[in-house]
C-alpha cells in the first residue's frame, strides 16, 4: 500500500524549512553559520590571503600569519620521490601513472575479466623495470634510493598482491573440513590480528636476515614487503571468509548435485560469488593498507611520510615550515584514500542494487 507523495516543494523552500523552520532551528543555524564563517575566514586568511606561494624562504619568514606554500614549490620533488636520483625522476612518475591507470581500469566492473590478471603482472613488471632500471638503457637505481609516492603505492599494491593468495588459502582453510587446518589458520589469523603492524615490521626487518642462507642479505624493501603482506593477509582472510559465509549453502549443494568435485565447487561456484560480494570491503582494506604503509618509515624506508622528513629535516632554511609540508602530505594521502572510499561506497550501492534485482 502506498500513500500519495507529498507535494514537491522547491529546493529553496526545503532548505529554508530545514534551516529556519522553527525558532530553535533558526538559532542553531545562525550559531553554526557564524562558527563556520569565522573558521573559514581565518583559514582563508592564513592559507590564501597572507600565504606565500613562491619558493622564497625570505618572504616566508617575513610573513607572520600566513602559510608558506613555497615549501611545496621548493621541495615537491624530494617530497614526492624521496632520494631517487634527481635527473631520473621521470621514471617513478611514469611508474606511478602506470599503476594508477591500471588501478582505475580495474575499478570499472565491466573490466573484471580474465585479462585483468596478466595486465596487472605486466604493469607490475613495468613498475619494477622503471624503478630499478639496469635494463633497456635505464641506469640502475638501488632500492635504498627509492622513495616517496611510488614507494607508497608500490608497497600497498605489491603487499596486497602478495597477501591475497595467502589470504585466500587462510580463508578456505578456516572453513575446511579438517579440524587441523581450521585450527592452524585460525591461530595464524588471530595471532597476527592481535599484534600491531609496527612489531611485525620490526620482526621482519630484524628476523628475516637470520632465516636467509648465510652470505646473502635480503633487501630492506623485501623484508618490509614480507612483513606487510604477512600482516595484511590475516585481515584479508577474514574479509574473504565473510564473503564465503554469505554464499548460500544451496549453491554448494547444487554444484555437488551437478557432479562438481570439492575444489571445482570452490573455484568455479563459491569463490567468484564470494569475491564479488566482498569487493567493497576489500577496497576499504586497500585504503587501510595504503595508510599503513606510512609505518614503514619507522624501519627506514622513505615512502611519502619518510620522504617529508628527508626533504625538510636536514634543511634549516625550510624546516620551520613543516606544518605546510604535512598539510600537503595529508592532501596527497587524502586524495587517494577518499577516492578509494567513495569508490567502495559506490560499488556497494551498485552491487546491492544488482542483488535486489
Amino acid at each position, binding site marked *: 500500500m502506498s500513500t500519495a507523495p507529498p507535494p514537491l516543494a522547491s529546493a529553496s523552500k526545503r*532548505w529554508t524549512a*530545514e*534551516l529556519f523552520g522553527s525558532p530553535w*532551528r533558526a538559532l*542553531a*543555524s545562525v550559531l*553554526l*553559520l557564524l562558527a*563556520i564563517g569565522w573558521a573559514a575566514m581565518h583559514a582563508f586568511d592564513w592559507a590564501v590571503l597572507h600565504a606565500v606561494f613562491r619558493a622564497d624562504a625570505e618572504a616566508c619568514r617575513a610573513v607572520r600569519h600566513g602559510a608558506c606554500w613555497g615549501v611545496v614549490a621548493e621541495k615537491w620533488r624530494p617530497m614526492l620521490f624521496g632520494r631517487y636520483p634527481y635527473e631520473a625522476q621521470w621514471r617513478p612518475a611514469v611508474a606511478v601513472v602506470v599503476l594508477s591507470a591500471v588501478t582505475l581500469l580495474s575499478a570499472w566492473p565491466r573490466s573484471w575479466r580474465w585479462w585483468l590478471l596478466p595486465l596487472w603482472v605486466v604493469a607490475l613488471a613495468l613498475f619494477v623495470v622503471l624503478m630499478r632500471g639496469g635494463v633497456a638503457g635505464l641506469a640502475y637505481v638501488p632500492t635504498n634510493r627509492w622513495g616517496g609516492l611510488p614507494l607508497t603505492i608500490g608497497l600497498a599494491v605489491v603487499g596486497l598482491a602478495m597477501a591475497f593468495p595467502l589470504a585466500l588459502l587462510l580463508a578456505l582453510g578456516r572453513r575446511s*573440513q*579438517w*579440524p*587441523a*587446518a581450521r585450527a*592452524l589458520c585460525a591461530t595464524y589469523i588471530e*595471532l597476527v*590480528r*592481535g*599484534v*600491531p*603492524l*609496527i*612489531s611485525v615490521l*620490526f*620482526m621482519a626487518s*630484524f*628476523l628475516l636476515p*637470520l*632465516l636467509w642462507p*648465510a652470505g646473502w642479505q635480503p633487501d630492506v624493501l623485501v623484508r618490509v614487503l614480507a612483513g606487510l603482506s604477512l600482516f595484511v593477509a590475516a585481515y584479508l582472510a577474514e574479509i574473504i571468509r565473510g564473503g564465503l559465509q554469505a554464499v548460500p549453502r544451496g549453491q554448494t*549443494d547444487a554444484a*555437488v548435485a551437478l557432479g562438481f568435485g570439492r575444489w571445482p565447487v570452490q573455484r568455479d561456484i563459491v569463490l567468484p560469488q564470494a569475491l564479488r560480494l566482498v569487493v567493497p570491503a576489500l577496497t576499504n582494506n586497500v*585504503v587501510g593498507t595504503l*595508510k*599503513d604503509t*606510512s*609505518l614503514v*618509515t*619507522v624501519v627506514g624506508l622513505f615512502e611519502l*611520510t619518510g620522504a617529508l622528513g628527508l626533504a625538510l629535516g636536514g634543511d634549516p632554511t625550510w624546516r*620551520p615550515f*613543516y*606544518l605546510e609540508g*604535512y*598539510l600537503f*602530505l*595529508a592532501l596527497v*594521502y*587524502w586524495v587517494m*584514500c*577518499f577516492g578509494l*572510499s567513495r569508490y567502495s561506497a559506490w560499488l556497494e550501492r551498485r552491487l546491492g542494487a544488482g542483488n535486489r534485482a
Partner: protein
Amino acid sequence: MRTSSPGSSRASRRAVWRGRALQVLLIAAVAGGAFWLVHHALETLRARGVRSGFDFLLQSAGFEISEGWLDFDSGQPFWRAFLAGLINTVRAAVPAALIAVAFGTLLGIGRLAPHALLRGLCAVYVDTVRNVPLLVQMLMLYFALTQLLPDSMEAIELLPGVWLSKGGLALPWPLREPGAFWPSGLDWPEQGGFNVTGGAALSPEYLAVVGALALYTAAFVAEIVRAGIASVSSGQKLAAQALGLAPGQQLRIVVLPQALRVIVPSLTNQLLSLTKNSSLAVAVGYPELVSVANTSLNATGRAFECIAVVMLVYLLLSLAISAAMNFYNARVALRGWQ
C-alpha cells in the same frame, strides 16, 4: 544433504582415513618448517656470536624513561622498564579511548541530525580524518605542539590554572599529604619567571599521542554509531514519537539501547585498533611499550627477544579487551526466548 549408499561406504571410509593422514602430514609439515626456521635462526645467531635469551630482562637497563606513572631509573632491570612502558601504553590508550568513544558518539549522532549544517560538518570531519594516516596526523600534531606554541615563559592560560606551551599542558592536580587518602586541596600550576611550575604536567609527546589517537578513532566510532542507529527500524522511532517522548528521550530510551547491539562488536574492534595504534607513539618519542622495546633492542642487540615481549604483551592486551567487551556485549545482546 549427501546420502551414502551401502556401496559407497567403503569409499567414504577410505576418504575419511585419507583426510586424517593428510591432516597429520599438514601438522608435521608446519611443525617441521617452524622447527627448521627456529633452528636455522639460532644457528645463524651462534655463528655470528650474538648472545640470545631472555636473561637480559634481569640486568640493569641503563637508560631513563622520561615520564610515566611508574618511577623508573636507569639502575633498575629491563623487565621493570618494559612494565613502565606497558603502563605508559595504558596511560595513553585509556584516556584516548574514552575521548574517542564520547566524541565519536556525538559525531555519529550528529551525522543523522535533522539539521543539514550539523550533518555536513560532521561528515566533513569524518571524511577528512579517516582518509589521512594516523602517523601523519600524530606527527603534525606533535610539530604544532612543540614548534608553533609559545615558549613556556609565555604560556597561554586556557582556563584558570590550565597552561599550554611548548613544554606541554599544566593542570591543577589534587594535593595529597603523605599517608592521607583524601586530597587536602588542589595544587595550582603557576607561571614562574621561566616556566610553569606545580600541578600536573603533561608532556607534548603524551598530548600528541592521546590527541591524535582520540581524534582519529573518533571518526571511525562515528561511522559505527551512525550505522548502529540506522540499523534500528524506523518503526521504533515512530512508536517512541507516538508515546510522546521528546527527541532526546527517543534517542536515549528507545534507539540507542537497540543500536548498542550492533555497535558493541564493531566498537570492540576499534578499541583493539586504538590499543595497537598506540604503538605509533614510538615515532614521537613517547616512552610506551614499543619505544621502550626499541631502546632496549638498541642497547642489548636482542632484537628477537624484545619484539617477542612486545608481541606477547599486545596479544594479552587484545585478549583482555576482547574478553571485557564480550562480557559487556553479552549484557546488551538480545536475550533469546527461554
